[in-house]
C-alpha cells in the first residue's frame, strides 16, 4: 500500500518536475499558498462571483453547475438551479470537486515534444508556434504523399462541449476533419443496446421521460447500478417507490440499487437474454401475451415465407408502386401481407381489421409463418427449468417476472449499458426488447423503457460540418470511417481489407484511449506503429504519454462553450468562461483554428463562436422554437421539450412499417472488416447465444474460472478525475471485489495482493471480500491509470474484437484466473 502510493505520487509529479527542469515555470500561476486562509487576515469580505458552468465529461447526467470564483480562482462548485425543472438540479462528488481538476498538478502547462520512448513520458517544452508548425508540416507532407486519409482523427467523448469537444457531432474538430478529408476512427462503444432499439423500434427517442414516473406501478432496473453509473436518475426511482411503486433489481451482484429494491433477482453474467426468453416462455404458456398490442403495433402478424423473405403483395401478383420519401428519394412500395381473420383473406397489413397472429393457411402456394409463430417456436425450448439452469435465476423468480410483466399493471423497465458490454449484448437486448413488446409494456403511460429525457439532440451537425468556406469552397467530407479494432489492424499491416491503407498520423482530443478502449496491449501496439501522434489534453493521462506532440487544452471553466447533446436532462447549457486559462493552455476550439490556419484552411473557419453555434442550433425544432445562442444565454440554460413524456406514444414506431419489428429479412452487419458472418443469427430478435467469456459453460472457464465486470466508478467518469485526490478518499486504489467462498477457496483475505490474468494481459491489485458478488464473478472498478496499479492494468485483460455484426467494445466479457501473490 505504502509503496504504491509513493510510486504514484512520484510518477504524477515527475512530469511537471521533469518539464520544469527543461526550463518551465512549474509553479501554479497566480495561486496563493495554502495556509493563508482569507478569514484569518480579517480584511474586507472578498467578492465571490458565480458563473454558469456545464459539467461535460460524458457521464450521461450533464449537470448544470455554479462556478464560484474568488480572486480569479475557482474555489467551489455547487449545483445550478433550474427555475423550470428542479427535479433536474444535480451535482455529484465529481462536480463538487471540479476546482481540484482546474488546479490539478497533472495539468499540461505548455506544448511539448516527445524526447523519450513512446509511453515513457519524457518530453521537452516547445512553443505553440513550433508545435503547430511541426504538426502541420508533417500533415501536409503525409497528405501529399499518402492522401488525407493517412491522418486519422479519433472521435472521443471526453468533453461534450460543442466548440471544443472532440465529439463526432458538429464540433469544430469535426468540421476540421471534414475540411481536411481525413480518416475518422470510431470508438465503437455503447453500440449494441441502442442499436437494438433502432432495429426494432426505428430511430428516435425510446425511453419514457421522468415526467411519466408517476404512472409506473413497478420499476425494474435491469443490469445497471444506477446509483453509481447514472446517479442523478436515482432519485426518480426512489421517489416512485416512496409513492408506493415496487422497485425490482435484476443484476449479477448485490449493489447499491439492490439495497434499495423490494426484490433483488440475481442472474449469471450476460445470461439476461435467456432470462427474457424464460419469461416469454412462461407468459406464452399462461396465455398472458398482449395479443391486441402485438396485432396492432408490431409486425407479429407479418408473414415469413420458407425462403426467409416476407410475403408481400408482389407475391400475390400486385405490382409494386414507387413513391418519393421525405428526403425526395424514390422508393419501391411492396406492402407486407397479413392474413385477415375477419375476412379470411390475405391483404396489405394496413387494410386488415384483424391480422392473424397464427394458424395462417398457405397463401398463393406459399407456406408462411407469422412472426408470432416464430416467437412461439423460439421460446419453446426455454422452459422454466432450462432458463433457470442457464441464468441461475430461480424458477420462482422467473414466474414472478412473467406475472409482474403481464398481470400487475404498468411496468417501467430501465436498461442502460450493463448488458451492452458483452459480446452477446445485441442478442440480449433484442430478447428483452421482445419481452416488452410481447407483454405490451411499451408505448403507454407507465409502460415503457425509462428514462429517456427529451433532449435537443445533436444539433444541425450536417450544416456545421458541410457549410462552405468564406470563398464558397465545400469541405471534402470524411475521407474514411474506420472502426477502432480495424484501425488497430490497419496501422500495423498498412492494409484495409487487403488493400493498401497507410496511416501516418493520429490525432486524439480529450479522450484517454489507452485506458478506455479494451485490450490495452493491442491499443499500445497500434499507437507504437503510428509515425506521428498528436494528443490534445488537459492532463498527463495514459494516452498523453504516447504523444509525439502534446497540446495543452485548458479546463472547461477557462473558456466558454455550449453543451448541446443530451443527457438525462432536457436542457441546453451555456458554460461561461469563469477564469483565464492557466499556463499556456488554450481552449480546444482555438487549437483547432490554429491548426486549420496553418494547414491553409483558415477560410473555412471565418465565423465567430456565436455564428457557429447558431448554425448548430438551426434544427427544425430549434428554428420552430427560436432557439439561438442569445436565447440560451438569457438564463444560461434553456429547456427543450422535444418529445412528450411517453416514448412511442400509442404504438407509434418509426420503422418502415411503422410497427415494432421482430424480424429482418436482410440484416447487414454495422461494420465490415472481413469477419466471418452467420447472418441467420441477426434476423430474428429472439435469437440468443451466450457471451464469449462471461459464459460459465465456455471451456475457457476451466483455465480462466472468473469473469470480471470492469465496473464504473462512483468517483470518475472514465478516467477523468484520476488526478483529484479528494476522490481517492472514497476509491483509493484498484481493487477486485470477490465472493467470500471463492476467496476462501483461494486462500485470499481482505487486502491480499492478487493477480488477475489471461492470455491477453494481467493486473495486480488488492482483493476485497464482497458478499454481494456471486460465485465466479468479480467486479473491478475500471478507470485507473496504468501507474495507479501495482502492476499491469485491468484494461489489458479484455478483448477488443467485436460481435460478428455489431461494432461494440465488450468491457465486461472477460475471463481471468486469479493468483494470490
Amino acid at each position, binding site marked *: 500500500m505504502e509503496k504504491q502510493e509513493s510510486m504514484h505520487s512520484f510518477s504524477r509529479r515527475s512530469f511537471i518536475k521533469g518539464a520544469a527542469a527543461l526550463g518551465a515555470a512549474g*509553479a*501554479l500561476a497566480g*495561486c496563493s*499558498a*495554502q*495556509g*493563508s*486562509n*482569507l*478569514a*484569518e487576515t480579517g480584511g474586507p469580505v*472578498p467578492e465571490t462571483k458565480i458563473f454558469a458552468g456545464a459539467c461535460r465529461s460524458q457521464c450521461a447526467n450533464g449537470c448544470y453547475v455554479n462556478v464560484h470564483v*474568488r480572486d480569479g*480562482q475557482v*474555489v*467551489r*462548485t*455547487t449545483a445550478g438551479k433550474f427555475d423550470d425543472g428542479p427535479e433536474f438540479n444535480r*451535482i*455529484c*462528488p465529481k462536480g*463538487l470537486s471540479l*476546482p*481540484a481538476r482546474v488546479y490539478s498538478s497533472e495539468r499540461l502547462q505548455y506544448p511539448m515534444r516527445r524526447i523519450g520512448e513512446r509511453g515513457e513520458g519524457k518530453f521537452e517544452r516547445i512553443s505553440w508556434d513550433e508545435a503547430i508548425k511541426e504538426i502541420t508540416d508533417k500533415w501536409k507532407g503525409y497528405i501529399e504523399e499518402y492522401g488525407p486519409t493517412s491522418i486519422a482523427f479519433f472521435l472521443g467523448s471526453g468533453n461534450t462541449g460543442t466548440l471544443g469537444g472532440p465529439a463526432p457531432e458538429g464540433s469544430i474538430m469535426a468540421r476540421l476533419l471534414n475540411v481536411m478529408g481525413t480518416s475518422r476512427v470510431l470508438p465503437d462503444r455503447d453500440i449494441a443496446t441502442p442499436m437494438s432499439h433502432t432495429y426494432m423500434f426505428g430511430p428516435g427517442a425510446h425511453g419514457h421521460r421522468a415526467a411519466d414516473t408517476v404512472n409506473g406501478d413497478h420499476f425494474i432496473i435491469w443490469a445497471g447500478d444506477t*446509483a*453509481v453509473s447514472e*446517479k*442523478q436518475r436515482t*432519485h426518480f426511482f*426512489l*421517489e416512485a417507490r*416512496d409513492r*408506493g411503486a415496487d422497485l425490482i433489481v435484476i443484476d449479477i*451482484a*448485490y*449493489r*447499491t440499487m*439492490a*439495497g434499495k429494491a423490494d426484490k*433483488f433477482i*440475481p442472474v449469471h453474467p450476460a445470461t439476461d437474454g435467456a432470462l427474457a426468453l424464460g419469461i416469454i416462455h412462461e407468459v406464452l404458456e399462461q396465455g398472458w401475451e398482449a395479443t391486441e398490442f402485438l396485432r396492432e403495433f408490431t409486425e407479429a402478424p407479418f408473414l415469413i415465407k420458407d425462403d426467409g423473405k416476407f410475403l408481400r403483395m408482389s407475391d400475390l401478383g400486385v405490382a409494386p408502386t414507387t413513391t418519393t420519401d421525405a428526403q425526395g428519394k424514390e422508393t419501391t412500395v411492396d406492402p407486407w401481407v397479413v392474413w385477415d381473420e375477419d375476412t379470411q383473406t390475405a391483404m396489405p397489413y394496413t387494410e386488415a381489421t384483424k391480422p392473424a397472429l397464427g394458424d395462417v393457411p398457405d397463401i398463393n402456394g406459399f407456406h408462411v409463418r407469422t412472426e408470432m409463430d416464430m416467437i412461439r417456436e423460439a421460446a419453446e425450448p426455454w422452459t422454466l427449468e432450462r432458463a433457470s439452469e442457464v441464468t441461475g435465476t430461480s424458477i420462482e423468480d422467473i414466474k414472478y417476472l412473467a406475472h409482474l410483466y403481464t398481470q400487475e399493471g404498468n411496468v417501467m423497465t430501465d436498461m442502460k449499458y450493463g448488458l451492452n458490454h458483452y459480446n452477446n449484448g445485441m442478442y440480449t437486448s433484442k430478447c428483452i426488447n421482445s419481452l416488452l413488446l410481447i407483454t405490451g409494456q411499451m408505448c403507454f403511460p407507465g409502460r415503457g423503457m425509462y428514462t429517456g429525457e427529451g433532449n435537443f439532440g445533436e444539433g444541425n451537425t450536417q450544416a456545421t460540418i458541410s457549410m462552405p468556406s468564406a470563398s464558397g469552397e465545400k469541405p471534402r467530407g470524411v475521407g474514411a470511417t474506420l472502426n477502432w479494432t480495424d484501425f488497430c489492424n490497419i496501422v500495423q499491416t498498412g492494409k484495409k481489407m487487403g488493400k493498401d491503407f497507410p496511416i501516418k498520423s493520429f490525432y486524439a482530443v480529450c479522450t484517454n484511449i489507452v485506458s478506455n478502449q479494451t485490450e490495452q496491449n493491442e491499443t499500445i501496439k497500434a499507437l507504437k506503429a503510428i509515425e506521428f501522434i498528436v494528443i490534445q489534453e488537459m492532463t498527463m493521462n495514459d494516452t498523453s504519454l504516447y504523444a509525439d506532440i502534446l497540446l495543452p487544452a485548458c479546463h472547461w471553466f477557462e473558456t466558454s462553450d455550449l453543451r448541446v447533446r443530451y443527457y438525462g436532462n432536457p436542457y441546453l447549457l451555456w458554460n461561461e468562461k469563469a477564469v483565464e486559462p492557466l499556463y499556456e493552455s488554450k481552449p480546444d476550439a482555438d487549437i483547432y483554428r490554429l491548426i486549420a490556419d496553418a494547414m491553409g484552411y483558415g477560410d473555412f473557419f471565418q465565423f465567430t463562436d456565436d455564428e457557429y453555434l447558431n448554425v448548430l442550433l438551426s434544427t427544425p425544432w430549434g428554428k420552430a422554437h427560436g432557439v439561438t445562442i442569445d436565447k440560451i444565454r438569457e438564463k444560461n440554460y434553456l429547456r427543450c421539450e422535444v418529445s412528450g413524456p411517453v416514448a412511442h406514444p400509442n404504438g407509434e414506431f418509426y420503422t418502415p412499417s411503422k410497427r415494432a419489428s421482430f424480424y429482418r429479412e436482410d440484416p447487414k452487419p454495422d461494420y465490415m472488416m472481413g469477419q466471418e458472418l452467420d447472418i441467420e443469427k441477426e434476423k430474428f430478435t429472439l435469437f440468443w447465444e451466450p457471451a464469449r467469456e462471461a459464459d460459465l459453460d465456455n471451456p475457457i472457464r476451466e483455465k480462466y474460472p472468473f469473469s470480471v465486470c470492469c465496473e464504473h466508478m*462512483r*468517483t470518475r467518469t472514465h478516467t477523468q478525475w484520476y488526478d*483529484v485526490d*479528494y*476522490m481517492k*478518499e*472514497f*476509491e*483509493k486504489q484498484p481493487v477486485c*471485489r470477490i*465472493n467470500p467462498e471463492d476467496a476462501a477457496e483461494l486462500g485470499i483475505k481482505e*487486502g491480499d495482493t492478487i493477480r488477475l490474468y489471461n492470455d491477453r494481459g494481467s493486473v495486480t491489485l*488488492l482483493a*476485497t*471480500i*464482497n*458478499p*454481494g*458478488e456471486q460465485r465466479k464473478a468479480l467486479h473491478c472498478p475500471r478507470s485507473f491509470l496504468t501507474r495507479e496499479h501495482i502492476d499491469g492494468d485491468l484494461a489489458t485483460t479484455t478483448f477488443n474484437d467485436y460481435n460478428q455484426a455489431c461494432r461494440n467494445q465488450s468491457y465486461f466479457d472477460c475471463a481471468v484466473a486469479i493468483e494470490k501473490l
Partner: protein
Amino acid sequence: MTRYGMAIDLYRCIGCQACTTACKISNNLPKDISYNVVYTKTDHDWDGSFGTAVVKGALANDNAGGTFPNCILEFMPIQCQHCENPSCLRVCPTGATQKRDDGIVWVDPELCIGCGACIMACPYEGVRTLSEGDPEYYLDVVVGEYDAPKHMAGIVEKCTFCKNLIDRGEVPACMDLCPGRARYWGDLDDPNSEVSKAIEGRKYHKLREGAGTAPNVYYLLPPERS
C-alpha cells in the same frame, strides 16, 4: 426559538459521497480531516457500528454484507450530531467547545488546546479530528468559502453545521444538493421547516440515545411497505 437540526433519510442515501465532498471543499478541509463520513453499513443495527469507510481505513466502500443473494447494503452518513445535551461541552477544560443558542455545537480554535477530552467524551466516534501536525492540503490553492474554518496543528475540528453559511442565510454545504434527496435541514422548532416536515410521520432513529446526548440529527428509517 431556532433550534437547528438535520434529518437524513437512510432509504434515500445512495452512498454517492456528494455531501462528503461538498463539505471537504466548502470548508477547505486538509487531507486528514473529514467532518462528514458516509459509511458502508452491512446490518440494520443502527446503534451498532457505523460501518466501514475508505477514509477511515477500509479498502473499499460499497461492499454488501450477508450471503449472496440475501445481502444487506446500507449507507450511514455520520457527522457531529449537534446534541441538545452535548457530552463534549461538559468536559472541555477551556470553554473552546460551545453551544450556540440555535443549537449549533462548535469548537473555538482560539481556545482549543487539543487535549482531546471532547473526543473521549463523545459517543459518536470519528466525528472529530485532533490535528497533530500542520495541515496538509491536496491543492496548492485555497478552495472553499472565504470564511471557512481555520485549520491548524493541535486543535480539534468537527462539523460546524456550516455556521458561516447559515449565518449569512445560506444552507450547509452538505445540504446543497443531495442527489438522492436524502438530506433535510432547518429549524426543528418550526413545524413548517423542511426538516420538521421531513420527520413528520416518519419512523426515525437517533443515534445512541442511551448516552443521554439528545442528538439533533434524525435518521429516517425506510418507509414501511404494505
